[in-house]
């Protein structure tokens, strides 16, 4: 392990200045992702700035929505969130075991990095950037994306649920505060632009805001994985419906495990709009959700799995009072 400095400031401004001033400095909160990445050599740092003591804890629930501070760990069990934003609570519960949830933070969750085993291997030869875009990897990787290139898939359950609800990431940096919608927060890395988000070096997530909406209250998160707990998603669906009788007024569908970013299934949302939530409409929406997928032979099953997961999620919501 590379030697590094460790600092634990108590003011946000101090934390921002330290990281901004040092190219390989990094923020650390719960460390459930970063420590592993440092141990494996996937990431290197010269200075860890521990933000645990920053005043970034708190959960506000108002008529306008939820404001979740970056270090707030109590969201999954909060009754207001469970009632008004079930998709978020369910995603958090599906995201990790209780031990990890008690360490991890929402801000860190959104920055956990792409899921691809090739990162770990690539660090052996300093190839991380090439591999993260799929250039030197095996095209037959069965967990790879179906809507983007490379091998990396977006794996944050929380992030997929936030993308469905049009949540906004609040970040603070040298240039002041910025507000980035979750759907525009991530980008597919490329060799010349290896960063996976639009966050600048030295910017710190301070909060996440989830706007209230009628759909949010009727929402659900479905995670398909290959063991019952302590496993990343293979695919996932965050779904939210605003119903009038059995007619869909509006809907939100986001998919995990299908691309390098949380994938908003807009075509499926358009298919649902204004329709009665019948079996046929659900099937059509599910089909629309996977239209345009470009799987490899090894991960072609994901297309069918996503289609079926969308059906299950919508049926669940249709039956949910």
């Amino acid at each position: 392990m590379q030697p590094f400095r460790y600092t634990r400031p108590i003011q946000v401004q101090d934390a921002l200045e330290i990281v901004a001033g040092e190219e390989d400095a990094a923020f650390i909160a719960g460390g459930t992702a970063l420590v592993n990445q440092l141990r494996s050599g996937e990431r290197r740092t010269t200075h860890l700035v521990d933000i645990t003591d920053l005043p970034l804890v708190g959960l506000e629930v108002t008529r306008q929505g939820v404001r979740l501070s970056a270090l707030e760990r109590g969201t999954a069990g909060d009754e207001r969130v469970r009632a008004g934003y079930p998709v978020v609570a369910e995603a958090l519960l599906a995201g990790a075991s209780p031990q990890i949830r008690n360490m991890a933070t929402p801000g860190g969750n959104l920055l956990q990095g792409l899921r691809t085993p090739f990162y770990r291997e690539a660090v052996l030869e300093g190839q991380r950037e090439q591999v993260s875009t799929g250039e030197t990897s095996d095209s037959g990787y069965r967990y790879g994306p179906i809507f983007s290139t490379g091998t990396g898939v977006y794996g944050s359950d929380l992030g997929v649920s936030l993308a469905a609800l049009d949540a906004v990431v609040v970040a603070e940096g040298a240039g002041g505060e910025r507000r980035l919608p979750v759907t525009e927060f991530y980008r597919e890395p490329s060799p010349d632009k290896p960063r996976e988000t639009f966050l600048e070096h030295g910017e710190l997530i301070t909060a996440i805001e989830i706007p209230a909406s009628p759909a949010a209250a009727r929402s659900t998160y479905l995670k398909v994985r290959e063991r019952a707990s302590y496993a990343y998603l293979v695919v996932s669906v965050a779904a939210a419906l605003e119903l009038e009788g059995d007619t869909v007024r509006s809907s939100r569908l986001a998919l995990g495990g299908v691309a390098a970013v949380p994938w908003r299934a807009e075509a499926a949302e358009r298919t649902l709009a204004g329709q009665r939530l019948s079996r046929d409409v659900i099937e059509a929406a599910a089909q629309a959700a996977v239209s345009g997928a470009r799987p490899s032979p090894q991960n072609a099953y994901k297309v069918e799995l996503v289609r079926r997961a969308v059906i299950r999620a919508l049926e669940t919501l249709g039956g949910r009072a």
Partner: protein
Amino acid sequence: MTRMGRGIDRIEARIKVTGEALYTADVPVENVAYGVLVGSTVASGRIRRINTREVERMPGVLRVFTHMNTRYPGEVTPETVGELRLSFSDDRVHYVGQVIALVAADSLERAEEAASLVRAEYEEAAAVTTFEMGLPSVFTPTVDEGYVEAEPDTSRGNFEAAYADAPVRFEARYGTQKYHQTPIETYATTALWEDNRLILFESTQYVVGAQTGMASVLNMNPDNIHVVSNFTGGGFGAKGHLWPHTIRTAMAARELGRPLKVQLTRPQMQTGSAYQARTQQTIQLGATEAGDIRAVSHTNISQSGLDDRVEPATDLTRVLYDFPNLITRERLVRTNHNTGGAMRPPGDGPGLFALESALDELAHQLNMDPIELRRRNHADRDPDQDKPFSGKALLECYERGAERFGWAQRDPVPRSMRDGHELVGYGMASASRLQQAMECQAAVTLHADGSAVVATGVAEIGGGSYTTLAQVAAEDLTLPYNRVAFRGGDSTLPAASGSFGSMVSASTGSAVKLAAMDARAQAARLAVADSGSPLFGVAIEDVVAQDGRLVRRDNPNRGESYASILTRAGRETLRGHGRFVPNEESPFSSYAFGAQFAEVRVDELLGIVRVSRFVGAFAAGRILNEKTATSQAKGGIIYAIGTALMEGVHHDHTSGRLINANLFDYHVPVNADIPSSKLDVIFIDDGDTAVNLLGAKGIGEIVSIGVPAAIANAVFHATGKRVRELPLTPDKLL
């Protein structure tokens, strides 16, 4: 009288759960240096150069060991090492992760940092990275001086004719993955030298094997090698052999003049030791309409690595049923992987996935109950050795397992049982495992204070051996269990069997029993010759043990405690010795048997399988400790639920690199996967008194055998879809 041993808590339970138990890497050693291994990043070729000089200049680095500064003074044998070409032998690279450097530094952190900066330049060669790539070059192995010990083909009767004549025929191909043992404790070695004497703290399943193996490769007298392994954090076969990193660590410690500790990382475990080879098996069955199986062929192709090695998947097919006309064949494909090896349950695990799946398919084809098909083809004698079994209660396993499970409620029609979103299925499979034995020794020492100490150098790998072996002595001496202490895990103690092959209870247990009998006989001889003893003058054969005393057989009130015998004789201690030698000329064939029953629930839409209920019924002779045996059986079933549903080592096809060599991506079951309140184990006494002195058989392996087939059969019953390649992941059931 029940032969079931009492369910006693483990001796070491408290120190294990409180963290006091010292595993190999925990043992404090003064002035220790730390070593970190570096693996190759290519699958085939030669090392042109390694930047060792540069790395040696880094802070705290003591030395970098590579093939350039390594010469092994002695020899290796397939019995002692898991791969015949030791790492650092030369500049050749045969697989990704092959150890090419050992970096020693004065702290672990400095060693890790330096190791991460080791770079090798390679002259790369073409590599066969996967089973599929090697398959076109499939070949028949020949018995060699390495790991191919058995002739690849066997037959009895006339398969071709019987198959041609069979009114019902069935043929299918099955696959199992490459699996790694993933014990929770990664390998650790600490080596220190005192003059020319080596003290080796080692994670091992076989203390004596580590000692003699090191002696051979270092060209030393075994008496100058002291191996200590207080506790081993799981092995499952991974720690049965000596591995090159241990050897090089010991040599490096001598060269550095300083103790050296090396612990493998989790990813290094997958190439630092053996694994269970991937298999592709083809089974042909020819039967009558009534379900008499007349013809069977079983061909297994297993994936070999650097050394040829067969994953012996066809062995049980020769024994488990009374198949009159049979062919078995073992074939290999060579790949650029490390050498495969034993992993619980070796051979029979993959083999019975195929055979027991095929029988289920045949039963379905014949419209016959799967248990009935197995009953019809039951082997009353071992058809392979043509010998009677020393004990066999397979039919009782079917019967009592089925009863406990509720097999009678099974509607035989696939897809006929449903619960909401989920299809429900029942499946079963047979299990069996050869009883192996190994020569070994033990000592039982009586003390004048009335206590006893059992000593044998057995490795405690998690199964509870220290406890059950102490129990064997306590029962023989009729001492209260808490008066018997246990010492193990040390090569200075009498040589125990390896803790593998399901043989500790039977082999080392027999040695302990003999040692206790010897101690008891010596105490009896002291007493009958002592005029002060109530047993004075009694014939030695009329002295028996009862309630911690030696008494007259015809009058149990006449007798005295071991303590008083020793005290009056002026003896502090009295040491009994036991040597167990397997009976190579046994007129019997000895196997454990079992039946596994699974209930699964399959999400019809999403293809997610969960095991919702499980019953394992095992006939394995006398069970020494009901509690540890039950725990071991449950653990073995859980382990094999992983094999069925999620497990497998995966390589990048292009580079050959491991892509899931960590516990997050290499899935084994977590609590949420296991129906812990509906996991039931039954032990059935087969009345076997011939297998060994204790009438005990090993259960470490049989409990995992048959489980994947029972689950796959249940999935077929639930869904109507037959999955012939493990694991049963959702993609296969869409």
